[in-house]
């Protein structure tokens, strides 16, 4: 018998999960995990049909393993019964990667949150996937080290989730994204086999399977242990806030900084409407009549930082910056960052829902893309704010909409698709750091040919031949795991019987 009332898993007539089978399965899971590690009542699993994206997908059962061995046993059990398995960290993902659009068994890694090894001399740590990103930095900062990837959700997101989505953050401009900091992984394959790839030192040996797994969005294997590089805190940091009267001046400043051979640690931009909305709530000191602010950070040895900050100051003023503020201490630095780090929350106050997009463009295309985003906003009747990693061309347009209004929800999806299409047109890509997940799988053909999909599919099948691992993600319908995808027409429509 196939799992769930989906034609997807049945060659013949659709089958309903039998109550008896469910009870047996839960008993078997309890044998593996004990009694306090399983949720299956509808009101309990309801909480797991969301992440931070606009998608939904409810699992049938949620389990909370604590060891790799438990994960392996759960996966074996699911494989025997043809039940989809989805990994999940803190549920902060923005593309629906940790949702269960076809139902199934959700493995929440939140209890696998132990730091297994801290090796200060070699600047490495080994962690379980449920360790919260910022907790790792807190555990090593006394030794002058930190974990470099810093997604905005770093206070709650897990390193396992960071690995699955190859998460970025404001400081990836100089420091790289998650994949640049992962050296080895322990995997549980869809048949329950436990395999280690990579090595603690980090140079790939034979094929770089670690590099393949990072950013594969949970579609190839479950990740149960992660070896990461730790970075050394810089001797000096300087944070500058530059205020501009036009977006173009701000964009040209970014281009000029690059042209002068400076790679800032971070280079973030907020557009005028966004900064006003944020200022209203955060009081970070952004002038309300400005068109854009740039938040730029340089780090390194003191001598280099001093000269770079002076050069950046000069470039900003050359491009008509109205004002350049340089933080004198950590407190001022925190204040300058406060507006940026809390911006998504601030925008959440002015609309019922916010849809944070993630597109990436060649950085030279910044001004024209921002114009186009405004046009698309007008065309679809939305206010679209822009907060983005200007230094690496990673945009986060924010669509304010009411998710309870079906028509608006559809329009928001259309506006999003129009923006992402434009990113691709100017030579960019579908996602800089949020991943494809459920959100953008249908946009994948904008970039990839049938031949590209065919190879990706063969690689997928090399690791996940039964398609039981995170089905309905990354690949568009008909290019991936058959017709496993159930996209909600309206947010409420996902409800299971």
């Amino acid at each position, binding site marked *: 018998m196939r799992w769930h009332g989906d034609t997807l898993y049945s060659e013949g007539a659709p089958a309903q999960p039998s109550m008896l089978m469910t009870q047996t399965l839960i008993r078997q899971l309890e044998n593996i995990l004990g009694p306090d590690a399983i949720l299956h009542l509808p009101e309990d699993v309801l909480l797991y049909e969301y992440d931070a994206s606009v998608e939904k997908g409810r699992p049938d059962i949620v389990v909370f393993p604590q060891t790799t061995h438990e994960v392996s046993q759960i996966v074996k059990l699911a494989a025997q019964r043809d039940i989809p398995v989805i990994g999940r960290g803190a549920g902060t993902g923005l593309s629906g990667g940790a949702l269960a659009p076809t139902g199934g068994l959700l493995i929440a890694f939140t209890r696998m949150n132990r730091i297994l090894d801290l090796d200060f001399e070699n600047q490495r740590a080994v962690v379980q996937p449920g360790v919260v990103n910022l907790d790792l930095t807190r555990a090593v900062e006394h030794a002058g080290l930190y974990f470099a990837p810093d997604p905005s959700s770093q206070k709650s997101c897990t390193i396992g989730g960071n690995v699955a989505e190859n998460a970025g953050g404001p400081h990836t401009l100089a420091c790289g994204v998650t994949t640049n900091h992962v050296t080895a992984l322990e995997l549980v394959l869809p048949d329950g086999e436990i395999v280690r790839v990579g090595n603690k030192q980090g140079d790939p040996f034979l094929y770089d399977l670690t590099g393949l797994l990072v950013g594969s969005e949970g579609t190839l294997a479950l990740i149960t242990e992660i070896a990461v590089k730790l970075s050394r805190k810089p001797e000096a940091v300087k944070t500058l806030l530059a205020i501009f009267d036009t977006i173009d001046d701000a964009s040209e400043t970014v281009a000029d900084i690059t042209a002068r051979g400076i790679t800032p640690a971070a280079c973030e931009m907020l557009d005028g409407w966004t900064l006003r909305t944020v200022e209203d709530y955060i009081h970070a000191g952004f002038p309300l009549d400005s068109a854009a602010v740039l938040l730029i950070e340089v780090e390194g040895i003191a001598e280099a930082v001093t000269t770079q900050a002076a050069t950046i100051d000069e470039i900003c003023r050359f491009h008509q910056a109205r004002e350049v503020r340089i933080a004198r201490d950590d407190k001022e630095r925190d204040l300058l960052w406060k507006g940026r780090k809390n911006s998504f929350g601030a925008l959440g106050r002015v609309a019922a829902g916010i849809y944070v997009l993630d597109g990436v463009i060649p950085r030279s295309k910044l001004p024209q893309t921002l114009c186009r985003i405004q046009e698309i906003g007008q065309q679809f009747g939305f206010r679209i704010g822009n907060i983005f990693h200007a230094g690496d061309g990673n945009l986060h347009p924010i669509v304010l909409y009411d998710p309870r209004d079906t028509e608006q929800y559809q329009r928001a999806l259309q506006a999003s698709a129009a923006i992402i299409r434009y990113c691709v047109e100017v030579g960019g890509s579908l996602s800089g750091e949020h991943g494809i997940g459920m959100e953008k799988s249908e946009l994948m053909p904008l970039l990839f040919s049938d031949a590209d999909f065919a*190879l990706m599919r063969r690689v997928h099948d090399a690791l996940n031949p039964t398609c039981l691992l995170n089905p309905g993600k990354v690949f568009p319908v008909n290019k991936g795991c058959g017709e496993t995808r159930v996209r909600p027409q309206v947010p409420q429509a996902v409800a299971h019987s």
Partner: protein
Amino acid sequence: MTASSTPSLNAFESLLDPPRVAVDPAVRESYVIDGFAPAGVAKPASVEEASEIVRFAAKEKLAVVPVGSRTKLSIGATPIRYDLALDMSAINQMSHYDPADLTVSVGAGMPLAKLNATLREHNQFLPLLVPYYPQTTIGGTIASGVDSPLRQAYGTSRDFLLGAEFIDGTGALVKSGGRVVKNVTGYDLHKLLIGSLGSLAVITALNFRTFPAPANPRGFLASFSTAEAALSARRKIAESPLSPLTLDVINPVAAKIFADRTPSSLEPSIFANENQQNAEGPLAAPGKWFHPSDWQLCAGFAGVPEVLSRYPRDLTRTAKEFGATSISILDDATRPSIWGRLREALPLFRQSSPFAAIVKLNVLPSLQAQALTILEAVGRAAKLPPALIARASGTIYVALLLPDDAVDAFAEPLVLLTQEIFSLTRRFDGRASLLFAPPTIKHVLDTTLNSRPNSDLTLMRRVKFAFDPHNIFAPDRLFPTQL
């Protein structure tokens, strides 16, 4: 000698116009790997032509080895089958370069030196100062997986390769990644190509992130009487606020080779504000810098004048703290002397002993002192004292140098010693690959697998067959494809 099955040569010759296909022995001879010549050579002028060759090979089940400038072709196991050499050196166009985006897309056959010359016009560069730099193609650099001393500051190619186009084993032209700096869109298949030795696909184009060229490169060299002292100084520097561009320790045997030999190649000019004449001239004579009786710490750094005054000060203080017996600071004119030798270390080792066996080990920095001491001891015991380079990032190059006149006499000790090094690496939870060795020795050694438990090898094989279902690409050169 040929490892070829009997391909349908007539059909092959009619695929492309001559001279883009050749079966002439004189041409084939220059594509020899470990004594084996291919039955035919194809040098396609376009990606479509390359794809046609691959489709033909897939149909006829011919073994294809993609090649560039053929400087590192002997890395990997001796071919078990070698029907066609697919010479990609004519696919060498720069298809995209927008300096403002700091991204570049180039054909696999583009010489690395030529690429960097173009980037330099915009004060940018690709931080790949790899061996055989003047000849090597960008495709060969990626496929061979060689590293650069600059990895201390910039990481390895895996950190700045943004995307690729390649022909898979069915002949289909496929791409992954893109040409933007951040990208989570589909699988990062291009990362698998790094170090794949052509066993997954034929690389046709590569997209990179470029970097601002550092200004005013300098060198620092300190001598120590023991490996421990040199490595302790290296560790102190690695943990300091400084971020040197290169940070390597070499042993006395390596120092002697550096002192005795000068690479034939010109020093590439990649840095900003660099004295063009120094930069592009032949390498300076080794001068007084390399000391054949010392362990030496070599660091490179660059920057604005304020930075340039800090590095020598801090580096010197640290070196003295660990008992450095001599210290040299190399300026604009003299620094190529150490940078160039570090870059061309493997060719220099092979120059000094054409039958050198060179093994690359990855061992965590904290275990390197112990590893280097044992490597020296076992080498001496076998009368094959190794030349050693230990990067702060954890890579160790071990070159076992054979006397030219006694290669046969040393064949057996060399095999035993290499096996000993492999098992030693395993003890340190490291990884080892035999890069170069006399063919007679490669025959009896697995070039890689002895060194590791093979838990992920099954996955590697599955990935190989996903890319190359007919096993036509460089079969068994990276690892045995059959269980």
